[in-house]
């Protein structure tokens, strides 16, 4: 965020809006300390229910989305977006000058769920949020784990579960080393359970599960 604050100040005369979006089920209270610590003067909005992650179809952060004044998305980068990255910064600069920002990077995780799977994941996520709001934290996590089982590559769901189960690893500071170890342990467990392959979770049939017969050659 300090890099973005510097960028915002350097472009104070430009006619554009810089908005950071915090994907955090804990709500504005969780985002506020980071914003205040960075002295950010641009708004941070909180996407508590993952509305934009579903709308835009991303599964991890940090991301950048450039929207022109007509509402057209002109460029996206899902994963690894940073104003401290020279190439990313150059894209934003071009965009704000009214120039063509260039092609969007290829999504590093092109695996997509089918429409029915996606609807089921969203339903489970929303159920989890409703349960959390009702004070049923354990049931909420169970619902989110159901969503993660269907969409194991989705790091926003995975981190949401971690934040609920291990809040001390996320607030007031984020323990990225712990996350790395936790992800490796969970990946290993998922590979052992047959949820994911050894190179990740590109398997296109998590809904089919282990009980579904393999497709015949005639299919």
């Amino acid at each position: 965020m300090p890099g973005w604050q510097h960028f915002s100040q350097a472009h104070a005369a430009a006619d554009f809006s810089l908005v950071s979006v915090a994907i955090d089920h804990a709500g504005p209270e969780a985002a506020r300390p980071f914003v205040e610590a960075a002295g950010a003067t641009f708004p941070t909005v909180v996407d508590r229910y993952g509305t934009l992650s579903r709308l835009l179809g991303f599964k991890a952060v940090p991301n950048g989305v450039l929207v022109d004044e007509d509402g057209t998305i002109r460029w996206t980068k899902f994963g690894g977006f940073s104003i401290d990255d020279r190439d990313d910064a150059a894209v934003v600069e071009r965009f704000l000058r009214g120039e063509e920002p260039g092609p969007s990077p290829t999504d590093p995780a092109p695996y997509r769920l089918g429409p029915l799977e996606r609807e089921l994941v969203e339903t489970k996520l929303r159920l989890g949020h409703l349960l959390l709001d009702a004070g049923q934290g354990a049931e909420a996590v169970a619902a989110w784990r159901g969503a993660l089982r269907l969409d194991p590559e989705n790091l926003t769901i995975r981190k949401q579960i971690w934040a609920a189960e291990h809040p001390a690893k996320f607030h007031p500071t984020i323990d990225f080393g712990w996350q790395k170890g936790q992800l490796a342990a969970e990946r290993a467990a998922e590979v052992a359970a047959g949820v994911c392959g050894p190179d990740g979770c590109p398997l296109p049939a998590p809904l089919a599960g282990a009980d579904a017969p393999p497709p015949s050659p005639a299919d």
Partner: protein
Amino acid sequence: MNDFALTDQTGQPWRLAEARQQGAVVLVFYRGDW
């Protein structure tokens, strides 16, 4: 991009359509710290 409305860190509403009236919008997504 469809319009959307969210709440900022102070509890104030923020809407994409209103921001677009001022010009282009740069959305940066993250979770917690940077």
